[in-house]
């Protein structure tokens, strides 16, 4: 099913494409995308369901700093890099989304 292109999806696409091969964390993504956690986590679930993202759990070193539980990370799949990359590129040219990519021009 084709999902609608929402502002949240565009913001997430732009944030994810800042590091297309890296690992991303939920809350860190929310901050970079300028979105509330209440929007980001359900959006990440939809991107996972659509096969644009894949997830996993980080390996936490047992020595050194205070131990903490492993975090869940999200990585772009090839399809995700393609689709969300296209969306992020479109956002730079589409006046509807230009405020997201270039907040100064909004």
């Amino acid at each position, binding site marked *: 099913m084709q999902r609608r292109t929402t502002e949240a999806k565009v913001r997430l696409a732009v944030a994810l494409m800042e590091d297309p091969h890296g690992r991303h964390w939920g809350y860190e993504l929310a901050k970079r995308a300028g979105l509330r*956690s*209440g929007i980001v986590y*359900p959006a990440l679930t939809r991107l996972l369901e659509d096969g644009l993202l894949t997830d996993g759990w980080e390996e936490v070193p047992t020595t050194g700093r205070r131990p903490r*539980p492993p*975090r*869940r990370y999200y990585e772009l799949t090839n399809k995700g890099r393609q689709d969300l990359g296209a969306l992020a590129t479109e956002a730079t040219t589409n006046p509807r989304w230009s405020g997201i990519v270039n907040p100064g021009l909004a």
Partner: protein
Amino acid sequence: MEALEAMARPSTYFAAVLVMGLLPGLVLRLLVRLYPKDHPRRTELLAELYALPWWERPFFVAQVIEVATCEGLPLRAVRTLAAARRRGSRLAVDRADLATAAATLVFSGLSVGLAAVFATMGFVIVDGYVLGAIDDWGDAWRVPVFLNAGFGAAVAAVDALRGAVEIWRDRPARTG
């Protein structure tokens, strides 16, 4: 000077330890219980909390209230109902229906209450404007805040009620 004195009080110190240190973890542990037992978000949100610097934790927990209520609670309700129906127990189905209805009613009731309070306060202040009482109040900024909060709570109330209706409509037919 008063602010400095307040900061030096032991009660301020303990309040800070409570709000910044103990409460975020405790409240988050309660909030993630709104998700179904095996849902990865339970572990994910807790792990995110402990990866954050302590001063950001209360704000993160405040945001999780929305995530857990809008994403976790409906999932939990659906799973609980499905599990109850799989067991085929009329009593379990009734209890699950009751729990879902109660949770939804509490949420929508709170939202309606908030909407009423905020909207009333907003309108009272607007009325104050009309009567030329702006100078006495000197709180013009509160009008949009209260009206927005009232509108937000009203939208949440409508959403919650719509969710309750959808859950009710989608319920499988009972057998036996």
